[in-house]
């Protein structure tokens, strides 16, 4: 055995010190990146962070100041904007539904062992990657130009993105599915769609549902944002209400309340249902 000149204890200490040094340097670089990033972002911002900080409550105070004297009109406003809120929720629901169905097909076509055409698995995976990569706003803006404003461009845009995003998650679920029912079905001569529908789907449906619910919550946020750029729903009303300017923010306040309430409601609901689902489906 070669003599290294170091006892095990010394070499261990040296190793630990080197490791600590590396982590320290990594952490220092990371913090440096973060700090310089914030400074750079601050430089490129129209208003500075420190100069804007004292004004941060001006806008909320303005909104509340406008809303409080007209508190009696608030229920009326809430009712006025309810249809727009329903539209926003509808956009999210339809996109989740249709996008989810597309995602089921795409995910089955791109899972090893289940795919209809195994050679095309990489193609379907790429397709899903691209669908996932395109931000909703891109498709929505192009479609607004062609189809004019309204809920449909937002719906199509969110559906497209949802299909890609859920497709990837669903295909991860599919990979854990038991293949024995599929083999059994193919031994009795079932077609591909029968094998999938009867052999795979019943196994994976709870997980699908849980992901789709989470997506639904995300899609409500997305559909509100797309409304803001012209695609109907509560976001569009918010943009209009914002343009009235200070002194007339009572409508904006009503919309903020509706939007906040809806998001919190669906956030809590989806958390609750998913918890119940994972505990029940714990086999």
């Amino acid at each position, binding site marked *: 055995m070669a003599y290294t000149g170091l006892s095990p204890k010394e070499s261990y200490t040296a190793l630990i010190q080197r490791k600590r040094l590396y982590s320290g340097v990594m952490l220092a670089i990371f913090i440096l990146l973060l700090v310089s990033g914030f400074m750079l972002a601050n430089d490129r911002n129209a208003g500075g962070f420190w100069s804007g900080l004292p004004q941060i409550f001006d806008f909320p105070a303005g909104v509340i100041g406008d809303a409080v004297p007209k508190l009696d009109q608030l229920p009326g406003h809430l009712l006025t904007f309810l249809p727009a809120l329903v539209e926003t929720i*509808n956009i999210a629901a339809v996109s989740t539904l249709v996008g989810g169905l597309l995602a089921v097909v795409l995910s089955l076509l791109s899972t090893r062992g289940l795919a209809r055409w195994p050679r095309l698995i990489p193609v379907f995976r790429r397709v899903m990657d691209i669908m996932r990569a395109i931000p909703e706003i*891109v498709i929505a803006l192009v479609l607004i130009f062609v189809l004019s404003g309204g809920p449909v461009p937002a719906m199509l845009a969110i559906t497209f993105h949802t299909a890609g995003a859920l497709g990837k998650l669903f295909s991860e679920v599919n990979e854990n599915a038991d293949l024995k029912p599929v083999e059994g079905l193919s031994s009795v001569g079932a077609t591909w769609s029968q094998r999938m529908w009867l052999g795979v789907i019943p196994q994976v449906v709870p997980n699908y549902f849980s992901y789709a619910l989470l997506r639904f919550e995300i899609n409500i946020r997305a559909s509100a944002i797309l409304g803001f750029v012209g695609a109907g729903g509560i976001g569009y009303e918010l943009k209009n209400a914002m343009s009235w300017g200070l002194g007339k923010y009572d409508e904006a306040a009503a919309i903020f309340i509706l*939007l906040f309430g809806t998001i919190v409601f669906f956030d809590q609901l989806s958390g609750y249902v998913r918890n119940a689902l994972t505990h029940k489906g714990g086999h």
Partner: protein
Amino acid sequence: MATAELYMSADRLFTRKKLFGFAFPAVIAAYLIYVFLAFDFVGLVERARWDNAQTLTRDTWSYKTHITRDNRTGDVTAAIEGERKGSYPEGTLPDWASQNDATTVISLGSGHEVTFLPDNRLRYVVPEFGTIEAGIEGRQVVTNLTDDIPDWISLSNTRLAITTDEGRVSLTRSRTEVFNYFPGWELFFFTLDSPYHGHSFGEILFGEQLTPEHSNISGAVHDFWNNTMWRHGDVVWALFETILMAFLGTFGAAIISLPLGFLAARNFTPFRTVRFGIRRVFDFLRGVDALIWTILLSRAFGPGPMTGALAILLTDTGSFGKMFSEALENVDEKQIEGIASTGAKPIQHYRFGVIPQITPVLLSQVFYYLEANTRSATIIGAITGGGIGLLLTQAMITQKDWEEVTYYITLIILMVMMMDSLSGWLRRKLITGSDAEKPRRPKSQSADSEEKGKLEPLFLP
């Protein structure tokens, strides 16, 4: 008797399943029909502007050069896309057009030829159709067209417009315009005023020096970077700003929510009120949503990447806080006990007992969010005015720079896919590179908490 009961219960089960099997699709179909009516699909088909779709698709892969005659002064000018920054120097025309005194001959290809004649007259030779002659008399457009006008020509008293496969011609009292279409993106590398325009890469790299001041490469890079038509330099900055927003928002939120996560976790904070309060703060931050945060913050800080980064930071503090506290509630107590048995101080419990357990879970969450936030930053940029999102909306508002829109969309997709693979790579590198191979699951607990321990994919943004 027992058999009959079994039969009955099986029958009941079958009926219920059958009913469900039909009712579920029926409910979905009914909902879709309701939405079909509520979203007014029928009216949408009527309102849709298919001509817009046509210009959009045509513009994405081709560009047009305008040749314009001012009918008051008689001046003829040429400009790519009709923009000032794409105009040809005064008195020069592209090589498919030639000017001779008051006559300008423009050949559009495939035998189509337009001639600007003196006295504001115009001749367009369309093969297999004939020669169209038009002019301005007084205030009116007069032509040699008979009543039987084909649908690719639109004619009124004040305006004549001819659209063929080769190009477009329009004539009004103030001006005569010809659009000639070419495939590709115009002036993508150099604008017309750059000395490098019209030279191939080989000539620029290895050919003789084109300007006395710079070497070819530095001059060409400068002219490319500052291309006024495509603004490559600004685009790169905008992409960087978008990634910066995502980076600052995600990691800022992660750093802030880690200590808050401890305060919201049942096993680390015994005070119920503190836990409850912090959790409501998380719910509030998430519930307000990036859209409202963006509006609110841009009022105080003005538009820019800082506003976008802070909006992402606030929303994600809510999401991370919730996830981190749930991950902390699932940590294995045995490791902490082990550390404690060696006489470690409380701070060392956290450092050596907790942090190594949760780091893989947290990091993988954070990197998932980094990719998703790149997309959010594009959207927030469009609202708050920063990054590539702003450039995209600006190009869209003009409703004619669709080739730029296509360029930006391509870049956005590439950027998101790059961030996706980068975050995936870092996730694998950092998580499998450290001691823990996988997001750890508590071993001591029962099966249902094992399910809960799988929070990695459940919280995908």
